[in-house]
């Protein structure tokens, strides 16, 4: 009875439990989309900017997915258009995690007052809509994919700082970190041997969540026409370019849309599982 009750009232997120299968389907889905994105340009039948026929031709014949609003082959553009998206999102996640890790660890180890100041600053940054940040930065460097990477990283990093700062503070106030400091270990030694190994798990789970957000923001940036300019293919921009012809041919915007759905759902499922494992292992 008690065990039953306990199982029912146990708080917290979904966790890894013995009976749960690993998320093979989500991993496979992610791999497929990432493979299409990275290797696509190698197998694309046409170039991304070649005009080959009338706009908005239906699927069939030489164009398995039809043509887009300028008469370009949709299949080729889909195959060309994912690379930047995936690489930008991954790059931004790496930058955000590194920044979040550095700032979070420093804030977590600093005096309580410094930590407070950092968390107030971080709170202020999170009030700013992420898209405003991205719009402003991308307008400063028109047509630059690196600007999008920096902007997405800047928009997601504050959340990493908050999470990892809290994680560091939790470790730094445990008995063994305090004991290490008391027996005369230097701050760097404590950081290296006591703090970092313990926040590696939360950092990984946090990076997975940041990747979800980064994909979301990167795709949206593409949709709004930020990053490298018009003739280049980009799944986000393909949706906005071809939405006006939705009643003529749905394939030009449905193909990138469905790939984006598959990618964000699969990565979301993986991140959810990661977060579950990290929080399950901690308690």
């Amino acid at each position, binding site marked *: 009875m008690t065990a039953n009750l306990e199982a029912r009232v146990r708080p917290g997120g979904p966790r890894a439990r013995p009976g749960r299968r690993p998320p093979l389907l989500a991993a496979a889905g992610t791999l497929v989309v990432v493979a299409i994105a990275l290797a696509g340009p190698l197998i694309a039948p046409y170039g991304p900017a070649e005009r080959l026929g009338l706009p908005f031709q239906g699927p069939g014949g030489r164009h398995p997915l039809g043509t887009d609003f300028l008469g370009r082959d949709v299949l080729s553009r889909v195959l060309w258009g994912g690379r930047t998206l995936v690489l930008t999102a991954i790059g931004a996640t790496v930058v955000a995690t590194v920044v979040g890790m550095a700032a979070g660890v420093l804030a977590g180890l600093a005096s309580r007052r410094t930590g407070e100041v950092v968390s107030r600053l971080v709170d202020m940054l999170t*009030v700013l809509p992420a898209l405003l940040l991205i719009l402003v930065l991308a307008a*400063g460097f*028109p047509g630059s994919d690196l600007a999008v990477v920096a902007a997405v990283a800047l928009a997601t990093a504050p959340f990493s700082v908050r999470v990892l700062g809290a994680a560091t503070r939790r470790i730094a106030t445990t008995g063994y970190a305090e004991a290490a400091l008391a027996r005369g270990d230097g701050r760097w030694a404590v950081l290296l041997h006591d703090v970092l190994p313990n926040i590696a798990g939360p950092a990984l789970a946090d990076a997975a969540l940041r990747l979800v957000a980064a994909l*979301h923001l990167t795709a*949206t940036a593409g949709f709004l026409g930020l990053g490298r300019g018009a003739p280049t293919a980009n799944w986000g921009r393909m949706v*906005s370019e071809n939405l006006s012809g939705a009643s003529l041919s749905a394939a030009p915007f449905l193909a990138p849309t469905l790939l*984006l759905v598959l990618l964000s759902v699969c990565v*979301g499922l993986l991140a959810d599982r990661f977060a579950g494992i990290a929080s399950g292992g901690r308690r």
Partner: protein
Amino acid sequence: MSWAVFVGRRLALAAASLAVLSGVVFAATAVLPGDAVSAVAGVNASAEDRARVRASLGLDRPVVERYAAWASHALRGDLGTGFVGNRPVAQVLADRLPNSVILAGLTLVVAAPAAVLLGLWSGLRAGGAADRLVTTSAQVAAGVPEFVSAALLITVLSVRLGLLPRVSLVPLGGGPFDAPRTLVLPVLTLTGVVTATATRLIRASVADVVASPYVEAARLNGVRGPRLALRHVLPNAAGPAVQALMLAAGALVGGAVVVETVFDYPGIGRELEQAVAARDIPMVQGIAMASAAMMLLILLLGDVCGRSLDPMRGERR
């Protein structure tokens, strides 16, 4: 802590945040390469024309001086005039902000009950299969970009079934309520994201309350079912739940850029996108401050509601 101190402290913090943010946004728009001259004078303008336009816009003065001028005017309620089209910023805000607020308000009307029900339902079953289904689908739904769900909704409801208009053509000089059918797709798109975000936050606070000794005692006393949920769990989870909803709603105010662009909805987000593209500093500044102020106000409201709804008044449970 008395109410006066609590609200006063939050207001001071909000004002400080606004001041810092205004500096950050101004610096970002001013320091980055490029300026509004191309948008005003045209791409093919000669060097002399460009210099004249730059001087007439005041862009030849140092950044700090321009910011000081902007700030002193803004404090007196004058947000200046946009570089492009010479529209007063306050006028644009007065025209567009209500439309965005309508969009956000309608979204909340749909999303709030759904999020509370789902959050309560799954929080009461924390760790179970139903809870896992709800949390995971919420996590996944929150990760799908808005324009993607908008595109899917357009395909099904507007292209295949022909039920709803694809763009929000609001009659000139009228508000969105003059064409209510145009509101459905934007609201549906935003509802998905907001419901997903708020459900996760509400579920977490419900699960915390459910695990508290207070609820365990009630359960051991034989209270169960709807009575346990409504009389014991909900009052304790209501405060955080309201805060969660407010947080999700705050993100809507600035985050509706995408949805307004997809549906050509005349709101503040689309205006912001155009202003940023033209490097129209006064307009960007005005809209950014307005949305940050809305967000801070909403967060403040959330804090006040959360505090007044919390039976423990901020004491540790």
